């Protein structure tokens, strides 16, 4: 097991180098020159040259990349062209918001996705199955930004039940310890802040999780149908077990193996920043930050975010594989010989 983990961690290195090369070159090929954006339209040629030299943009791209890589290896991702603050700090300030949203969305998606999938499979060809399939179909096809706007219109504009955007009422913001409002509010013992933060989380996580929920529903349904047709399910019934145990224990545990991968990949995607959702709900996370930075050609920030997202994907995949081994004892990652 340990060997497997070490192997997987070592595999991160080539992945990260590849990703950094791609994003580095793409930014330089397709993004407009950042200098006029930073200095303003009326900046002199001299000022622009000076700025480019100061930021190392006058050197050959290969040299620029190697300098960046050397810095990145030492944990220095550079500074933002605009805020002049270090990229790590800028990302660190926004990442908790994204994580909070992603966790809420994946929890929503997993619970309802698995539930709907199981019900649809157990009651195959019934009205429940049809409803589940319909929800899943709508979930994958509905554009997030449109769903977000609808949710805001209905729950915020019409019912006045939930806030339309932001993470929290500014007046209630708890003292920053971790950056996660839920955690910070609990640490501060500020229940009003916790409640407010939770209420702010409902609509965006619903909008963001809808797609993942649809995918998880479909996966669970098909995987569950397969398990239910297996002979060990019949064995479980022949033992006289209650149907809920037959389905909930014997069939579900087997069905969850492929579902776990899907949940892992979806969570990775959600962490990578929900560009549209964060924009619609003015959620101050890295998704919104990415969009802003790309538009401003803020190279170091975009590079930093992409590297982080790549790292998250690799990690999430690793975790999904480890959960696999827990769910399915037949998978042994270590080279231990089994009889």
């Amino acid at each position, binding site marked *: 097991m340990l060997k497997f983990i070490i192997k997987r961690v070592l595999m991160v290195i080539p992945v990260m180098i590849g990703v950094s090369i791609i994003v580095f070159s793409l930014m330089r090929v397709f993004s407009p020159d950042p200098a006029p954006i930073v200095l303003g339209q009326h900046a002199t040629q001299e000022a622009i040259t000076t700025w480019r030299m100061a930021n190392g943009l006058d050197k050959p791209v290969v040299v620029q990349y190697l300098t960046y890589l050397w810095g990145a290896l030492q944990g220095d991702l550079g500074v933002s062209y605009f805020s002049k603050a270090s990229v790590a700090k800028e990302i660190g300030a926004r990442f908790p918001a994204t994580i909070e949203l992603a966790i809420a969305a994946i929890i929503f998606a997993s619970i309802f996705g698995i539930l709907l999938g199981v019900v649809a499979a157990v009651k195959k060809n019934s009205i429940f199955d049809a409803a589940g399939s319909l929800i899943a179909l709508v979930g994958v096809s509905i554009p997030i930004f449109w769903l977000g706007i609808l949710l805001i219109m209905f729950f915020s504009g019409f019912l006045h039940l939930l806030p339309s955007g932001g993470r929290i009422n500014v007046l209630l913001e708890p003292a920053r310890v971790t950056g996660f409002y839920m955690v910070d509010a609990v640490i501060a013992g500020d229940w009003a802040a916790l409640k407010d933060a939770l209420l702010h989380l409902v609509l965006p996580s619903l909008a963001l999780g809808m797609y993942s929920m649809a995918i998880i529903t479909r996966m669970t349904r098909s995987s569950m149908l397969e398990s239910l047709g297996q002979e060990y399910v019949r*064995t479980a019934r022949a033992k*006289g077990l209650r149907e809920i145990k037959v389905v909930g224990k014997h069939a579900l*545990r087997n069905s969850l193996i492929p579902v776990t991968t899907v949940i892992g990949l979806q969570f990775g995607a959600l962490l990578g920043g929900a560009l549209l959702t964060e924009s619609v709900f003015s959620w101050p996370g890295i998704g919104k930050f990415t969009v802003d930075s790309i538009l401003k050609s803020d190279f170091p920030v975009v590079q930093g975010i992409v590297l982080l997202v790549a790292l998250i994907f690799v990690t999430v995949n690793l975790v999904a594989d480890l959960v696999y081994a827990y*769910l399915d*004892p037949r998978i042994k990652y270590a080279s231990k010989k089994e009889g």
Partner: protein
Amino acid sequence: MTGVPPGEPMTVTAGPAGTAAACAAEARGVAEPPPKGGHGEAGLLLQVRGLSTDFAMKKGTVHAVIDVSFSVREGEVLAIVGESGSGKSVAALSVLGLLQPPGRCVAGEVLYKGRDLLKLPKGEMRDIRGNHISMIFQEPMTSLNPVFTIEDQLTESIRLHLKLDRRAAVKRAVEMLRLVGIPSPEKRIKDYPHQMSGGMRQRVMTAMALSCDPDLLIADEPTTALDVTIQAQILALISDLRDKIGMAVILITHDLGVVAETADRVIVMYCGQVVEEATTEQLFERPLHPYTLGLLRSIPTMEDTEATEPLYMIRGMVPNPLHLPRGCAFAPRCDRRRARCAAEQPALIEVEGRKLRCFLFEPGCNQAATALSPESAQAGGAVRRADSEVAP
């Protein structure tokens, strides 16, 4: 409850007195259901009457089991024999109520100690399953859940039915594993199914099925997926345990060798119907139904190695279950069919204490009373008349 229910085979009173007595006993068992909780006078444990099971498919309805009746006495081994698709497994699953849609029991009753299992509420049926009647399936590789340990799967039914706590259940599970001959059961109980061989897994399945001391074990082709030496071990194990625990066994198989070695009585099924029922001795000594005869003749014997003639084969194929022949289902493949066979369904009649579904043995049939022995048949199909053997 009086008279003969519609599912009961038509009984023709046969000549010999012994048969008549057996019939009378049978009829008595039918008319008076045994007292609840106890056993019938004749020691009848399970009585299946007129069981019919359908599968409603898109292309039409498949009648997988048609008007099947049989009974199992305490401690008896009843074999159900037939080709793949003859309905033997479906009949067994119907008994335990384990059919999944689109399969459905459409008629008949399954009386277990006098209670009709088909009409039992779900909760009571669960108490029967695994506790009173348990089942071993054909595929040991897939019948165990791959993601739980043997301990987990084995103690499940013990804790459920015997109401033991975890420790006592584990102790009982280890005992059961020892009983079925798994070496160092204390260690192996922690294993996952994939860590065991096919034979070991089938032993585990057997241990699981026997863990609550069932009155009846249904073994659905328990040895088909195993190699020959393991087959013999598992069969010996089941026979051995039957003697120790005193349970009855329904052994479903297509292997007549297995039947000869283990069964007391045999039912031969073809296309969902019982075509012949006899004691094992009767069946092997003198098969009556042309299908049974064909089955026996297609077993290679030691003498065959010298023979120049190819091994006998029942000609043709099992008919498509969606389009069964109008008359006798076996007629298109039968060497002795007559015009009537293709037009009418023969009824199950009683002949010399055995049951048969063939016009050849109906009373008054002038061609009847022609019983073939495997030897004479193999010798070239010479038909030996045996008038004395059949009721006029």
